[in-house]
């Protein structure tokens, strides 16, 4: 499946990335090379094979419902680009 620049631009938007025009062209071409290589997988007969989502056979990993100490507030926001009145500040979201 070949991807056009327009579709690649939509994927970029989904991923919240932006590219200059020439970059977008190059990225799309590179992606197409890689996607073409993926077509190899169509050679494999996978009828009836369950998808493997984990290499381990672990199930039911639980925690008990016991409160732990939350992170000290100052540490929680220490790396924040912008904080005011205990909140992380972001450009306005138009609802």
């Amino acid at each position, binding site marked *: *499946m070949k*991807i056009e620049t327009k579709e*690649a631009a939509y*994927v*970029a938007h*989904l*991923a*919240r*990335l*932006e*590219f200059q025009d020439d970059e977008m062209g190059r*990225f799309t071409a*590179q*992606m197409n*090379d*890689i*996607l073409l*290589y*993926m077509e*190899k*997988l*169509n*050679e*494999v007969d*996978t009828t009836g*094979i*369950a*998808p*493997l*989502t*984990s*290499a*381990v056979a*672990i199930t039911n*990993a639980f*925690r008990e419902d016991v409160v732990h100490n939350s*992170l*000290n507030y100052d*540490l*929680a926001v*220490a*790396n*924040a*680009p*912008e904080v005011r009145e205990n909140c*992380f500040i*972001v*450009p*306005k*979201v*138009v609802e």
Partner: protein
Amino acid sequence: MELFRLTIHELQSLLRAGTVTATDVVGDMYRRIDAVEGSVHAYITLTREAAFAQAEAADNLIKQGNLKELTGIPLALKDILCTQGERTTCGSRMLNNFVPPYDATVVERLRQAGAIFTGKTNMDEFAMGSSNETSYFGATANPWDLTRIPGGSSGGSAAAVAADMCAAALGSDTGGSIRQPAALCGVVGMKPTYGRVSRFGLIAFASSLDQIGPFTKDVEDCAILMNAIAGHDPRESTSATVEVPDYRQFLLGGVEGWTIGIPKEYFIAGIDPEVEASVQEAIATFERLGARCLPISLPHTEYCLAVYYIIAPAEASSNLARYDGVKYGFRTDTYRDLLDMYKKTRSEGFGPEVKRRIMLGTYVLSAGYYDAYYKKASQVRGLIKRDFDEAFRKCDVILTPTSPTPAFRLGEKTDDPMQMYLSDIFTISANLAGIPGLSIPCGFTTDGLPIGLQLLAGHFDEGKLLQMASAYEKSAPQEKRRPQL
């Protein structure tokens, strides 16, 4: 005595005997770093002050006879491991000034064992790369030839160990990022079984493939570090509850009567002839040691790369969505609104390889393509694992070259992503199947570049790998070569 040349176990003896102090060791180490780090550039952050403070504390403990397993031993950490209060960049502008408020579990365990940290090592950005050239902080050079790459993504850790700028180091391996640089830098590197070592505090790249593992100068050191870091962690759901043996018990066993699988798909045209020759010599050595080599087939090997480059970017695209300029990390300077802030922050904060993989990953998960790519790849992944399950019924371990070529030159493959991805063809399969893998040095090319041998075993059979590697190390004529820095 050049303390910086010594292994962990050698340092342990000297420290225990009181022949040297921790401060002596750390002092010597930083003198070495000051001498060669300029050429190698293995580190992003050096933690000199803290290290000397730790050394002082260690010496007090030693005086009281309170030595722990790793007291006074200087280790380096790949900058993908969160260290409390210490900058952790993941090789990226996105986390350039990020200071985690917590330690990764492995870091906690090493601290508890008394280890001293020399610094955070350089790496491909967000662990995406095989040459250490995508780091925001510049490339690392291979200590054996400063015009060549050390491998990646844990290139800094591999180079630091090879250049004797630490006694040992930790790295991470998602598609070969410990084993490949270990081979290219002539050191021992292990990727444990998936779930063997806690991923808590490891900045995630591909969650179902990532593992943390050691870089060491010899096999005994590898066993020592594995003892310190392996084991169940309640903070990770995918952490294995399988008991951790004392890995040092495997060092003396030998390989008499063992069956070593030689998979034909890993001995293909295109491997550097010197690499091939060196690996064949190693096979002969094992036969001399009493093992029997069995030709086997891992029929789905040719699909590993395609499966990996669907699954890893897909998981990565999701794992890296948290880097949005809101809670921590880089945020762009000027923006019109939220959408603009997101796009500029992520486009300026991430390098091109990271963006390429995020795009790929987003695409293969997007509506209409999930079944064709991600689901299909997951199914083939199941077949790849099955190949190994069947192989390990017939043999104890599997042997392959670690990398098809020795270290290539800086800049040689940066223009063609597919070319770069091919450096991982021998290592990727172990991550997909979740099995442990170990790379050990097995020779040099005529140009003096290291060659690595890869050993693979079944789930939780790290012991077998160490046993086999130890037998090889003891028997093979010891090359006392060091890089000329």
